[in-house]
């Protein structure tokens, strides 16, 4: 085998300079340039000069802070907060359950696990993946507004609005979880003559169930936040109350609802962290146990 022929050596011309430039400008450098450029562009494009703060902006900030320091803890407000929190939970749970009904079949199709025929599988995967990405492209509040415009103020506007993008997200993640399982158990099942549906139930699901469950719970937490903002289009819940109180410049009341929302989310997040620790990592990592 001859080595590189002398005539193929790069001549110090234009091509050589370009090649060496490209060698020096690897992906990381290009990335840094793009990111720094994007940041500079966004900072320079925004209008920072013409009265960024309102005339009474600083006074309003003071009122906000003092309002938040002393939330309205009267029985009436707390009762309304409890009711609003419950409605927020109802929307989140109902929306998520509709999302699950939509997501599971799409995820099965998108994972391509049930079909053995090659071309049919490719078609199923690409069509369902496209449907899933279309479902999750539009924000839930945009859906909510469209539904309210179409069918009026109904809890189902909130539920469907929540269900559509969440089905898109859940379906995609579920499909990924079902694909990313260890191969060995699946092969063992197939060698034993199992069909693809048996492989799914006894091979893939047991490997993926912890991830599936903990991700679903995480999505419930997001669903609570999404349900809370449905108030913006007139549907009841915590966001509705926050907006009403802010419109009345009643910061103390707004603070109460905000803190209830915070408490609700923090509670669910704490629960979901514990659940994930238990499920995905098998045991506690030692953090938090030794305190």
């Amino acid at each position, binding site marked *: 085998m001859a080595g590189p022929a002398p005539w193929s050596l790069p001549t110090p011309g234009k091509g050589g300079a370009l090649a060496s430039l490209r060698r020096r400008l690897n*992906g*990381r450098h290009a*990335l840094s340039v*793009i*990111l720094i450029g*994007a*940041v500079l*562009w*966004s*900072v320079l*494009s*925004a209008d*920072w000069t013409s009265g*960024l*703060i*309102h005339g009474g*902006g600083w006074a*309003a*900030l003071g009122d*906000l802070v003092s309002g938040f320091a002393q939330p309205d803890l009267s029985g009436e407000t707390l009762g309304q907060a409890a009711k609003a929190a*419950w409605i927020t*939970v*109802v929307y989140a*749970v*109902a929306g998520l*359950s509709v999302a699950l009904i939509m997501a599971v079949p799409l995820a099965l199709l998108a994972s391509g696990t049930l079909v053995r025929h090659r071309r049919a599988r490719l078609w199923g995967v690409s069509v369902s993946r496209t449907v899933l990405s279309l479902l999750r*492209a*539009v*924000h839930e*509040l*945009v859906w909510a*507004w*469209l539904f309210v*415009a*179409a*069918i*009026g103020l*109904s*809890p*189902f506007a909130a*539920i469907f609005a929540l269900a559509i993008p969440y089905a898109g997200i859940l379906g995609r993640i579920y499909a990924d979880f079902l694909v990313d399982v260890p191969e060995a158990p699946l092969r063992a099942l197939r060698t034993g003559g199992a069909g693809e549906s048996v492989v799914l139930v006894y091979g893939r699901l047991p490997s993926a169930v912890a991830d599936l469950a903990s991700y679903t*719970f995480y999505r419930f937490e997001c669903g609570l*936040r*999404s349900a*809370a*903002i449905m108030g913006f289009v007139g549907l009841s819940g915590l*966001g509705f109350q*926050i*907006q009403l109180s*802010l419109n009345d410049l009643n910061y103390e009341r707004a603070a109460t609802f*905000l803190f209830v*929302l*915070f408490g609700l*989310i*923090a509670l669910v*997040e704490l*629960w979901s962290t514990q*659940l994930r620790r*238990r499920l995905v990592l098998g045991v506690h990592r030692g*953090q938090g146990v030794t305190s």
Partner: protein
Amino acid sequence: MKALRPVGIVGGTLVLAAGLFVASWGYILIDEWQAVSDLFRVGTVGDGWRFVLELAGLRDGPATPAFLEAGRWGDALALAYDTLVMSVLAITIATVGMALTAPLAVRPRGAVRPSGAGNTWRAAAAPALRWASYLVIRTIYVFARAVPELVWALIIIFVVQPGIVAGAIALAIHNFGIVGKLSAEVVEDLDPAPMRALASSGAGTRQRLLYGVLPQAAPKMLTYVLYRWEVIMRTTIVVGFVAASGLGREFRLSMSFFQFTDVALILLVYFLLVGAGDMASAGLRRLAR
């Protein structure tokens, strides 16, 4: 004495999920029965269909639908540009905030001993300080991300003029809570060996951070930041409802004036923007590898 074993968290979650499911749908079926029966009226289907026709511009008679006029596309693309600026500004602010706070939000580890610089009160107070900063910043993170972007926007516009910057700040606060938490966890899960090696060869805190933590953590943090940027792109339209900027403002106005073909145009541009953003983010992540 294990007779009264408490239900584990997995069992508890299952019970909770089933209970919430039954209670929520029960509440809807009983308290909102009117809405349930309305849903299955023929009129509701007709209303929905009429709305779709209005979006498609098939009910307005002679007027040209907005999405068939080149000039309107130009307007909408200019608004998309504003929206894009808002999203990049938002993730920039959130990332800067994260970079300033995440090093202080890492759970203190027993393994790293304070350097044996004598038993001064400062050495004694250091662990307490580290715990205090960890707890305070983590609580701030939880609060920042518990409040949705839209609610932050509702509050922000009392202080900041509605516009791109107000929207970006609202988006940034919420995402600061998310990116901060994720980054702190990345640092917590790092391999401690390089830091220990640096420390044993006499590196100070700043050097350990720069040469031990950052090279290991940066790729993962960047991935998180880019993922959040994709989410922010989707959310800018919603924040624009309140912050009166970009596509969101126009969407709100067109909905209020029942100009549904304009709504359809904005949705189309929004679709394109989100798709382009996802592709750009995927490309950048590939560059990082």
